[in-house]
């Protein structure tokens, strides 16, 4: 049995707690949160051992691993403390707020031989796994371009009262939403080498962005476009779509299905024909021991548990991988701050202060 502690009982933490507690090879020996009302309820009704202090929990309960799902700004210190106590760490995404810190934690974990994983659950979605398998088999030839999109209805008005509405605490569309398609893009075509033309736009939020658009550059001349908006009410829930264009065809994948077009010059792939082949999640998704909100959430925790027993398993989503995604997030932030290249002085006012520009008639537009 793997003895686990769960840290941070917000939306992600509670659902992780529920899934991991149901895992047949795991016991949850302690939970930590700062909110006493949650701890009170859990302790009274579920018999969980509760703590308000993370270090106290690590000192008084013997654990093999912790799941950290606190607001992002706490990740770095908590992960370090956990690694110093010699426990394996599963941490929610993004790993930390600076890529240097993420890389350092990856280094630290590796030097101690500890298993690490970050909650980029899309890598456990059946359709995205199939896309990865096809790309590894060079099914669509040489990849030239990748389009990474996510849309959903998170922020639909100006007021927000949690850490997710503040960029300084790890909130915002870039950390919360864009991190997912970015991470998938690097999984599919490799690390991004540069970014350009980044826009971090506000639709409603005052202290963070609601839209992220950018051009991405990868090795071997592969280009990418990122388009993310978490203020889109037309979507019922977060929807991530990856479109990958190659010399021999293309792949379009979302959580429900994968649509693959293969040219007649494409290599033969079992189960795929020339022209369109469409496969759905119902045939691509392996069963999980416990289902709460998508097989991928269960599958990633199961994978973490198994990696503790078998460290030789592929280290997908480890800290080093998440640090690379954090690095791209950093590049996007810097690029957006640099602003656009201007064509003439007349456009300066419009480009630097888009919300306050006036039309020729003097009215605010």
């Amino acid at each position, binding site marked *: 049995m793997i003895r686990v502690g769960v840290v941070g009982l917000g939306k992600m933490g509670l659902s992780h707690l529920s899934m*991991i507690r149901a895992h047949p090879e795991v016991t949850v020996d302690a939970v930590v949160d700062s909110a006493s009302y949650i701890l009170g309820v859990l302790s009274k*009704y579920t*018999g969980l051992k509760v703590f308000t202090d993370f270090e106290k929990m690590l000192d008084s309960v013997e654990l093999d691993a912790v799941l950290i799902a606190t607001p992002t700004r706490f990740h770095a210190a908590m992960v370090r403390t956990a690694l110093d106590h010699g426990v394996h760490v599963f941490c929610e995404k993004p790993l930390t707020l600076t890529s240097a810190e993420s890389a350092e934690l990856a280094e630290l974990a590796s030097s101690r031989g500890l298993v690490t994983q970050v909650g980029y659950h899309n890598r456990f979605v059946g359709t995205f796994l199939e896309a990865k398998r096809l790309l590894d088999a060079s099914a669509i030839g040489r990849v030239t371009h990748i389009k990474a999109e996510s849309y959903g209805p998170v922020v639909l008005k100006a007021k927000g009262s949690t850490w997710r509405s503040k960029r300084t605490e790890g909130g915002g569309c870039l950390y919360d939403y864009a991190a997912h398609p970015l991470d998938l893009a690097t999984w599919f075509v490799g690390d991004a080498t540069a970014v350009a033309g980044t826009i971090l736009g506000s639709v409603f939020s005052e202290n963070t962005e609601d839209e992220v658009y950018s051009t991405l550059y990868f090795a071997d001349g592969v280009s990418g476009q990122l388009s993310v908006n978490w203020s889109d009410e037309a979507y019922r*829930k977060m929807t991530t779509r990856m479109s990958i264009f190659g010399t021999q065809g293309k792949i379009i994948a979302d959580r*429900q*299905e994968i649509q693959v077009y293969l040219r007649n010059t494409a290599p033969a792939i079992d189960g795929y024909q020339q022209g369109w082949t469409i496969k759905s999640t119902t045939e691509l998704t392996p069963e999980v021991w416990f*289902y709460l909100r998508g097989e991928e959430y269960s599958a990633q925790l199961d994978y973490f548990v198994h990696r503790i027993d078998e460290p030789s398993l592929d280290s997908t989503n480890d800290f080093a991988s998440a640090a690379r995604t954090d690095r791209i997030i950093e590049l996007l932030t810097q690029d957006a701050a640099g602003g656009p290249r201007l064509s003439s002085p007349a456009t300066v006012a419009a480009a630097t202060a888009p919300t306050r520009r006036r039309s020729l008639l003097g009215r605010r537009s």
Partner: protein
Amino acid sequence: MNTTTTTTRVPEPVPAKLDRLLFGDNQFFGINHRSEEKAREQAMRFQNVDAIMDVIDDAYASGIRTLMCTTHDRISEVAERVRAQPERYDGFAFFPCMPYAHKYADAVTESGILGALGRFMPDEGALNAMMRGGRSLAKKDIEGIITLLVDAEMAGFTGVRSPVIWLQNVVVDLLLGLGFSDAFAIFANHVRSKYSAQPGFITMNLPMLLDHLDRAGIENPLVCSNINKIGFRMSGGVEAYQDALEKRPFRAVAMSVFASGAIPPREAIEWIFAQPGIESLVFGASSRNHIESTVGLVREFER
């Protein structure tokens, strides 16, 4: 793992058998487990309540008398129409499934857990409700909150028949994983005592849930779960489900019988009727043809 329940149980009346076929509402809200595009088409088509009513009327004409539904605002409008024409919709019933999870999930992202709770208290005596809510939290007693939230969700169904009230799967399975079985008993008691309705539980983890409902003291529970030939979203595996259907005392409602279209209809229904102990099937459809062919298949295998 769990504390035993201390809640006093309301004696259960002899439960009425459900209709063989229940009509679901996923198709009206852009929910499709296999295709984002299909989901969007449906969301566009059914944004108008008239379009929803047309399909419900087709279902009614085919002999279907039950809508198993979310508590989405548009369903309240459907309830309003049914309420307005009691003779036209004679014998029609709603089986509300609550809570409408996305509403809460988005609210939690925006306002935190406490903030979200505060936003969903019932309209009737809002202040009173908030005070009850606040006191419940201070007492660390979840009972008040659960009953308040149920009442808020039921507001749209006053004046129409709702003989079964379901706890929706994300909540059931969250509580299940946490080991919070007492919440099931609290829900069941409230549904029985305040609404004289049968409590039901929707789950993606049937075998595990049955153990926990046992522990919560809920006898012969009404449980709805995916039951289909290919084992789609049947956590614990098809065999564990078949074993439960055969041996365990519960009333099974099968959903996702066609696995979102992955199984041909005839094959899907034939398999369902070969399983023991399935009381009812819930299915969604957007056309009269599809409704009639499903009803036809069920009548055929029922014999």
